């Protein structure tokens, strides 16, 4: 019964979304306040209905109601409650429900926080959100309905894919979708602005927090997914340039560009048309990502949950929204007036460079990801584009960006002084180079270019600090005044510094682990010891255990340094009974930001077992940097200027001007 209520709620949600797609737009055209106001109520109603529907599905999973086909296919009564919960979105139907839920959640937030938006902009934006709601509700109801019942009712479920039976599944998809779908808000605002034909700095001010929030969540989602793959897949890699990973990286790159161009637009009224285009592109890439993952057109590590027949439907949605948005853009964008001027060497100029590099790398990843697909469709030839290709092209594109990042915040708006910025950064650059060299000689080994990589990472961190240092005026004023000035800086300044420093920390982690990682592949028998990363790893033997829905072979390892035991760990191989599927659970021991990663291989005929031991120095910096970037996002979001929203007096003269121009 509860499941049927959920099903019904979803159908109702479709109906509400349909109404909300049309009436507010008409209201905005006719300047009818009542019809425009409907969008707000509709957004709340839509969210409540979808939430109800989603919760009924959660209930079916928690109650292990195997009469529901979706539950039977993806759950097992022996799974722990947390995995039964996360199993809701560990499959195609459920993850589309999560998509829709987050879409309506963001609509409701826009309705709630958008009180000081111009009525027509808000009505149009919420209507655009509803268009997407209609498309995805229809998609779920017609092709991916999770509420279908089975008869006769099976006694036991078929279990969830074992790789997904991890706390990572509980966190990674919701975060990733909050990011992906969060960009729908900037998309809707862009479409609404194009419909309205009005675009000003205030628009950028409204859009930027939403973009920032989505970007922060996407950063978290990608980092989380990367760490999950690192510890779960058992071979210690943290980025595979898998098409599905690329699908999440592309909106991140475009979103990062958007974040920066919206800044230019808000502060200087320049890059307006470009910002609108980027809003459209960013969300289009999110939709493309959904299509790539959900349709199964790409074979990849992630394609656990695929069904090609649905691809056509999503492709339809994709073409409708992306095609429609670009058509609207081509039609209306020429009407928008170009804004403020700036010299090539200026804050704006540096942000344009940022946008150029980010967009080009996004385009390169896009082409690399889709190329094999397109080539095979056109010529029937199969080629692979894998990690070696992306490492080379993407890596080369990132180098100039990493060097340029610290300069941006130090340049003045409108007309900057590169020499001055250089002078202020030479301390940071010198320190970075020294730090890179010291780090390198301490480690003593690896390719020489690693020094440059490390220096680039340190440069980002020190550059971010230098920015704060000069803003506070340390060195010119007394320490107490400097401190007062520092604490008085807007939070967005700290957000910028944290974001850039976080990027630097991630670069440090990537370069360090790539360069200084060591690997041992050995056959070990009980009592044997292997040296790795300055530690002695002793294999103490195996034991067999049983989990709720799996059997497990565990190996115990003692880790000692200079003859003193410092840690111990279990590394194991599991066999999930329902699906007869093996997984590895690596034994990971953390020392500071470095890790010892122990993974079990095949047993040998002589009673030993193949053991792979990696020493991964500073590997945690990769995700630690992402955490710092996220912190930057949140700190920036808490900036008063973003929270308060644009004051009305700023928006009104523009409106009046637009009205006059229309006459």
């Amino acid at each position, binding site marked *: 019964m509860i499941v049927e209520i959920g099903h019904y709620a979803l159908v109702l949600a479709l109906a509400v979304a349909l109404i909300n797609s049309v009436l507010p737009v008409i209201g905005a055209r006719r300047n009818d306040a009542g019809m425009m106001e409907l969008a707000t109520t509709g957004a709340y109603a839509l969210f409540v209905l979808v939430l109800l529907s989603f919760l009924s599905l959660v209930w079916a999973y928690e109650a292990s109601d195997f009469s529901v086909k979706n539950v039977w296919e993806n759950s097992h009564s022996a799974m722990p409650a947390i995995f039964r919960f996360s199993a809701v979105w560990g499959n195609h139907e459920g993850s589309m429900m999560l998509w829709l839920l987050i879409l309506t959640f963001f609509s409701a937030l826009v309705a709630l926080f958008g009180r000081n938006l111009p009525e027509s902009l808000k009505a149009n934006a919420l209507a655009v959100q509803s268009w997407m709601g209609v498309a995805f509700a229809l998609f779920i109801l017609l092709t991916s309905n999770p509420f279908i019942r089975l008869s006769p009712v099976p006694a036991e479920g078929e279990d969830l894919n074992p790789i997904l039976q991890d706390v990572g599944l509980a966190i990674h998809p919701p975060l990733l979708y909050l990011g992906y779908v969060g960009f729908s808000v900037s998309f809707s605002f862009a479409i609404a602005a194009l419909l309205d034909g009005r675009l000003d700095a205030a628009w950028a001010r409204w859009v930027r927090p939403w973009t920032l929030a989505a970007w922060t969540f996407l950063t978290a989602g990608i980092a989380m997914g990367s760490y999950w793959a690192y510890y779960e897949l058992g*071979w210690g*890699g*943290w*980025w*595979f*340039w*898998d*098409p599905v990973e690329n699908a999440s990286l592309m909106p991140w790159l475009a979103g990062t560009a958007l974040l920066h161009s919206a800044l230019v637009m808000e502060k200087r009224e320049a890059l307006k048309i470009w910002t609108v285009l980027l809003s459209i592109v960013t969300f289009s890439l999110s939709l493309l990502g959904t299509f790539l993952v959900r349709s199964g057109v790409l*074979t*990849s*590590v992630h*394609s656990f949950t695929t069904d090609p027949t649905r691809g056509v439907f999503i492709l339809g949605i994709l073409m409708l929204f992306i095609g429609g948005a670009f058509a609207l853009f081509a039609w209306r964008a020429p009407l928008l007036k*170009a804004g403020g*001027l700036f010299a*090539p060497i200026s804050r704006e100029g540096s942000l*344009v460079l940022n946008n*150029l*590099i980010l*967009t*080009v*790398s996004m*385009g*390169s990843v896009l*082409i*690399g990801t889709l*190329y094999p697909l397109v*080539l095979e469709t056109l*010529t029937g*030839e*199969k*080629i*692979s*584009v*894998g*990690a*070696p*290709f992306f*490492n*080379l*092209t993407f*890596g*080369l*594109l990132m180098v100039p960006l990493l060097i340029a990042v610290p300069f941006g915040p130090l340049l003045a708006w409108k007309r900057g002084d590169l020499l001055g910025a250089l002078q202020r950064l030479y301390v940071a650059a010198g320190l970075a180079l020294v730090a890179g060299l010291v780090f390198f000689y301490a480690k003593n080994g690896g*390719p*020489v*270019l*690693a020094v440059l*990589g490390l220096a680039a990472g340190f440069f980002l961190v020190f550059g971010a600090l230098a920015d704060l240092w000069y803003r506070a005026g340390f060195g010119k004023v007394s320490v107490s005044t400097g401190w007062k000035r520092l604490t008085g800086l807007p939070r967005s300044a700290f957000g910028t510094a944290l974001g850039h420093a976080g990027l630097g920390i991630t670069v440090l982690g990537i*370069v360090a*682990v*790539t*360069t200084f990682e060591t*690997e041992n*592949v*050995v056959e070990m028998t009980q009592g044997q010891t292997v040296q790795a990363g300055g530690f002695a790893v002793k294999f103490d033997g195996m034991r067999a255990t049983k989990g709720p829905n799996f059997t497990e072979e565990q190996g115990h390892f003692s880790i000692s340094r200079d003859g003193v035991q410092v840690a111990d760990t279990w590394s194991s191989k599991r066999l999930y009974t329902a699906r007869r599927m093996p997984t590895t659970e690596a034994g990971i021991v953390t020392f500071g930001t470095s890790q010892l990663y122990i993974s079990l*291989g*095949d047993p040998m005929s002589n009673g030993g077992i*193949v053991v*792979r031991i*990696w020493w991964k120095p500073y590997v945690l910096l990769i995700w630690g940097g992402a955490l710092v970037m996220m912190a930057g996002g949140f700190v920036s979001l808490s900036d008063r200027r973003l929270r308060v929203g644009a004051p009305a007096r700023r928006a009104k003269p523009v409106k009046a001007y637009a009205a006059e121009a229309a006459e």
Partner: protein
Amino acid sequence: MTRALFLALCLLLTASPVLAVNPDEVLSDPALEARARGLSANLRCMVCQNQSIDDSNAELARDLRILVRERIVKGDTDEQVINYVVSRYGEFVLLKPRLSARTLVLWGAPAALFVIGLGVLIIFARRRPSVAGAVPLSDTEKAELDRLLNRDKTDES
């Protein structure tokens, strides 16, 4: 020089080979083994999804790893090994496709996009000042200006 730099960068940025190599496959000569690992990281495991043979523990990947090592021991250069593997498995086996007429767009894309982007930027930057800075006032604007100026005068009087 640039080629060497490219190569070094490529080596630097390639995630260290890890994984599924078993102790019984490892060559006794570390230099040859290092070459084998490098080549393996660029070869696709044909039955896996987006994994190199170096990462995969599939049976077929193991066969290919052993094949690569056999060729290296026989004295093949890296290029000869790659050519041999491609002749048996086709271009699909290469994770980094070779430059050819078919992959020209792929390899050219990053540079082309950058040049196009830069070109568009320069065109816009050159056009902008003349539009915003030097365009004379239109008749309506002049009239509007006159009206405002005159109104100020009447206000004063």
